[in-house]
């Protein structure tokens, strides 16, 4: 099924409401993600940022009480449509998590596994090398590909997780506070990497760190909570504009530190 939609958005949400049981966690989100840019989602704790991010590749499906209304379009196709297999959605829209979570396998296997289960037919060795290079990790691990992914430092583990996501060849990479467990230097490396990756990939990042959003993103969406504790999107625009000239009072209060 196709929609009359502007296909130059990487993801477009229309009237999205997300529920956990009877609790409405996020309401009425209309968001257009620009391809090959970095979009940051910021906002206070509990405003539903992560819930929104996880609904982009149907990771919320594993929460039994989760329910969603509205449409989330990817290439004009609603990813929540009946005939869409969430497995395929997650292959096209990859994810990096808050805490680095490499598999307890070798570095090589960490990267190769995703490609292999998705039926990759090419040369795995080349793919592993290329993705590790893309994730700016190759030089650090090339002599130790057989070592466990868990033997790396936190920052390296997170870059390994990014490499692992890249190996599946997604179009969009969702990052759920990817630097919250890392030190500033490792954080900076990830941010540089994100900048590099945004030439090929669309990146959506949820972050608590406003400086990070200001530094690293092209677009910023600010979410907050309503009186009924439902998250909602207050303002969305170019990062520069959001941080220097917010249109909404609530955004200004948040980024200037008066709230949050």
């Amino acid at each position, binding site marked *: 099924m196709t929609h009359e939609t502007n296909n130059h958005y990487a993801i477009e949400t229309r009237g999205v409401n997300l529920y956990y049981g009877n609790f409405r966690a996020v309401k009425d989100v209309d968001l257009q993600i620009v391809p090959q840019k970095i979009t940051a989602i910021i906002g206070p704790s509990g405003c539903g940022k992560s819930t929104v991010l996880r609904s982009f590749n149907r*990771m919320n499906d594993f929460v039994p009480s989760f329910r969603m209304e509205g449409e989330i379009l990817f290439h004009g196709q609603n990813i929540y449509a009946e005939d869409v297999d969430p497995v395929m959605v997650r*292959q096209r829209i*990859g994810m990096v998590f808050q805490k680095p*979570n490499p*598999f*307890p396998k070798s570095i090589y296997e960490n990267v190769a596994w995703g490609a292999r289960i998705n039926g990759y037919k090419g040369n795995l060795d080349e793919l592993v090398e290329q993705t590790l290079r893309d994730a700016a990790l190759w030089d650090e691990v090339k002599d130790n590909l057989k070592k*466990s992914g868990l033997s790396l430092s936190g920052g390296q583990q997170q870059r390994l997780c990014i490499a692992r996501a890249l190996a*599946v060849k997604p179009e969009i990479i969702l990052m759920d506070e990817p630097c919250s467990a890392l030190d500033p230097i490792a954080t900076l490396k990830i941010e540089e990497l994100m900048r590099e990756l945004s030439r090929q990939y669309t990146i959506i990042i949820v972050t608590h760190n406003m400086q990070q959003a200001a530094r690293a993103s092209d677009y910023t969406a600010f979410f907050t909570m309503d009186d009924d504790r439902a998250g909602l999107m207050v303002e969305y625009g170019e990062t520069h504009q959001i941080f220097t000239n917010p249109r909404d009072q609530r955004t200004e209060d948040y980024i200037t530190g008066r709230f949050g």
Partner: protein
Amino acid sequence: MNNIFTSPRSILAARHARGKFWRGVFFSSTLIGLIALAALILTILNRAAGLVVITDAVDRNSLAGRPLTELTRPELVTILQDHLTRTRLRTLERNNGPLDSLDEETLINLVMEQVVKPTIRKSYTLAETLFQRAAIEQEIAAMRAETPNLQVEFRSWLNPGFLTRSMSATPELAGVRTAVLGSLWIIAITILVAFPIGVGAAIYLEEYASENRVNRIIQTNIDNLAGVPSIVYGILGLAIFVRTLSHLTSGAVFGIQGSNGRTILSAGLTMALLILPILIINAQEAIRAVPASLRQASYGLGATRWQTIWHHVLPNALPGILTGTILAISRALGETAPLILVGASSLINKDPTGVFSFFTALPIQIYNWTARPQPEFRNIAAAAILVLLVVLLSLNSVAIVLRNRLSKRGT
């Protein structure tokens, strides 16, 4: 210099004292456990070795004037022919084959069993042997005055002969071979049946079953079944495997005649039922302990549910599953009650040859021996307990080695 940490001294002391008190309590709990274990092992060891006083019906050295082990095979055959009736000889030949064809060891055993017929006049425990030697010597001297041909020897009841002989009505000729083989056969069936079913059920309940009323009821039932007394499983096994499915368990379906359902297969299946809830619960626990982050990582890469389970959940849960299996096997190996119900017989001296054989098992043998009046049976029961413990430990160590190898992989 003034100590800045002095303030309400007495209160602090009381807080520390409370901590010390509880430390003491926990330490004594551990100590009581250790003492109980040590007492258990010492009691068994105490019974498993010691001095014995033996009288022969026919003095073994007077048979040919030399020790039996130095005799040739024809000489041994002659002894048998001289001392036994013709009918008795015929029975022997029917059971063992022609006397001329038997090897030396078998012949010596036959001579001992049929001609010498040693009886134990008196046996002493290990503690008595070690610490009351003088009193024992006196007692033996008194006995010697009555019966001159007395043999006194130090005997470990757990000896190679004990392991290789089968059941016998005389304690010094009885062994555990049949029982050990029976136990191993039963455990093999139990593991083969219970492990796949248990792990399968655990995977279903943890990974596939949704939160609903039916599944909650199933879960509650499994939890409760783990606590059902084993005798109940015995009754169940008797009703289902021995009686209802006797065609299958007796092997009649496969053309084996003259058997009934009281076979190793029935016993193994009953034991499998018995340990299934334990296995399922432990496997569920192990599967639940696999971090959610690992599953998410897998799903996030576009893995299907099965790929996630097979490549990540199971390998990471396997060490835990094996730990549960170890516990379950230990339980099954030591169970007695259900085996009695499904027809273990302690009077079997024919080795099991397959799953349709009749059987006896170690705990059955131990139970039977401890119930006999002659004190020597308690000695061999202690030896059999040691055998059971060794079998148990070796099965467990296999599982532990397997587990360690698996959990080392990938970390």
